[in-house]
């Protein structure tokens, strides 16, 4: 089956400094994939680059296919059909994504007119249906309100409604709940999963919060310094992480129940993109580092069905496993 979206060897550099160093990821229709990693790991840049949303001075190379068709570097007219129509995106700070001097109706209708063949009253009726769908009470009246009249959680709901205006096949949610309070975060995550189920939409959930990703995604990719270092079904990744960085991230998360333990902090900090270490970018912080780690950057290699890891130690353990199987 052709994947809905497949990204291969996507690279991005700003002023010659590489920030994305070869990302491969594919998404099936209706699948929810989580992207985790720390700030600067390239989670957002991956999708901004894929959709041609980076500033012109960014150097982008690689391949991004939507239903098998190359969209990286596609003409603006074609990309306009993709953005909002096939792939929609929502961001962390919903308030700054809306125009403060236009009513919600104007902004929702604009998206509908651009992406759907609707005229006159049908546009307004659809705008109202979308607001209803995302759980804004009294949708008919609230359409005439301005963004500042809504709370933070409601503004994010409106952004979701706008993203849904073009009936996209894929929604990229970039830290959609990071700016929200815990109880509102739970509401928005529930809304996203309901909408996704009802519309059969695929989703990429970008988050620094492992818990959020674990609960809402089928599959997770962990990014570090511009590369994917581990990719696995959510349950497997959190139960049994293989890459030392993924292990470190999970160990650094304080438990909410059970006995308290000292957190296993990852020493040091994320490398500066302008002075990336040779070989594996995580090696300077890794507790399992071996001499070979400094020689060449490990590639993302499968270790099981639907699981891959970019770590030479993982490859060694996989060979050991295969050896046992062969006996």
């Amino acid at each position, binding site marked *: 089956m052709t994947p809905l979206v497949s990204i291969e060897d996507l690279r991005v550099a700003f002023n010659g400094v590489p920030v994305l160093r070869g990302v491969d990821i594919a998404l099936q229709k209706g699948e929810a994939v989580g992207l985790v990693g*720390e*700030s600067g790991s390239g989670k957002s840049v991956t999708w901004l680059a894929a959709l041609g949303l980076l500033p012109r001075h960014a150097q982008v190379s690689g391949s991004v296919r939507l239903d098998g068709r190359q969209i990286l570097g596609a003409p603006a007219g074609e990309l306009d059909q993709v953005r909002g129509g096939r792939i929609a995106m929502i961001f962390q700070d919903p308030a700054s994504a809306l125009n403060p001097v236009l009513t919600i109706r104007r902004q929702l209708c604009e998206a509908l007119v651009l992406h759907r063949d609707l005229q006159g009253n049908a546009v307004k009726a659809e705008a109202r249906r979308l607001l209803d769908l995302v759980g804004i009470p009294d949708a008919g009246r609230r359409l005439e309100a301005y963004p500042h009249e809504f*709370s933070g*959680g*409601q503004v994010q709901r409106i952004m979701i409604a706008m993203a849904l205006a073009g009936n996209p096949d894929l929604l990229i949610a970039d830290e959609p709940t990071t700016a929200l*309070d*815990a*109880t*509102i*975060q*739970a*509401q928005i*995550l*529930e809304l996203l*999963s309901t909408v996704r189920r009802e519309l059969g939409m695929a989703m990429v959930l970008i988050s*620094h*919060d*492992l*818990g*959020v990703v*674990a*609960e*809402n995604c089928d599959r997770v990719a962990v990014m570090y310094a511009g590369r994917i270092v581990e990719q696995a079904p*959510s*349950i497997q990744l*959190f*139960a049994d992480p293989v890459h030392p960085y993924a292990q*470190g*991230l*999970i*160990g*650094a*998360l*304080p*438990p*909410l*129940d059970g006995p*308290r333990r*000292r*957190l*296993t*902090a*990852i*020493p040091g*900090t*994320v490398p500066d993109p302008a002075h990336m270490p040779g070989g594996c970018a995580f090696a300077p912080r890794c507790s399992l580092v071996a001499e070979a780690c400094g020689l060449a950057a490990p590639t993302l290699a499968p270790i099981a069905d639907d699981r891959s890891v970019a770590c030479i130690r993982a490859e060694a353990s996989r060979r050991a496993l295969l050896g046992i199987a062969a006996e």
Partner: protein
Amino acid sequence: MSSPLVEVSAISRTYAMRSGMFGRAAAVHAVDGVSLTIARGQTLGLVGESGSGKSTTGRLVLGLEPPDRGAVRFDGKPMTALGTTAWRAQRARMQMIFQDPLGALDRRLPVATQIREPLDIHGIGTPAMRDDRVRELLRAVELTPAHGARYPGALSGGQRQRIVLARALATKPDFLVCDEPVSALDVSIQAQVVNLLCDLQAQLSLTLLFISHDLRVVRQISNVVAVMYLGRIVEIGSADDLFARPEHPYTQALVSASPAPGRRSAGRIVLSGDPPNPAARPAGCAFHPRCPRAIARCASEVPALSAVGGDRQVACHLVTGAATRDAA
């Protein structure tokens, strides 16, 4: 030794807020009758959503602003009036660290100078001793003297927060108020700072008031946790017990809303409605419009914080009502 270091009794703080440019001034009860005690060497965690009054509570406890009602006692003595010599002496014993270390540091001064500043202000030691103390503090937060010569802009977020921590510790305080100290940091760096804070607390027998919206971090570091909602404490108890068996419907929703790897969202309590507006506090229990279990009494009568067994106190008619029935 057995008396608590910090005793807060029924403090309240009200701000006047205008809605819009020409709106009428409304009273916002940021903190409304909060009482707490923090034992020496212990950590009290304060959790709640934005607008719950946790930061204001921290500022009142430190004496950065006076409460409208109620009183704060530090080491058995009442807080001294702002700006006096006695206040200065007391302030050297209590310090605060905030969420944004870059905002708390001067970008135009090397960080070592900034760590030294409280020593200069309070006239602690000779100049040579102060330099030694700065090196010692840098070591305590696991940085080198080379880091001290740098400017804040040349340090990472985690390193900056260590500098802020070193400066807060310069005067050898007994009490530290930490307001969201790790919220702006990435998970792996957050773990470094949390571990450091735990170690320093044990070494220096510090007493901490730890304010955060992150339940995981609060549980990791606290002995006792208080949950705030719209300016009041709705539940307080020992950290492990509170998160394992939350009694108040709001605490239950908060714990349930905290996502955990390896747990799917089945059975999650999702509260309806928006976070409440502190300027328009609902009558009765402030939580009742969002509470899945609210009864008629909740809309009219404010529940008092009362003991429900062990060291737990809960302000909820449903919980305390049931407890009194069991006792009868």
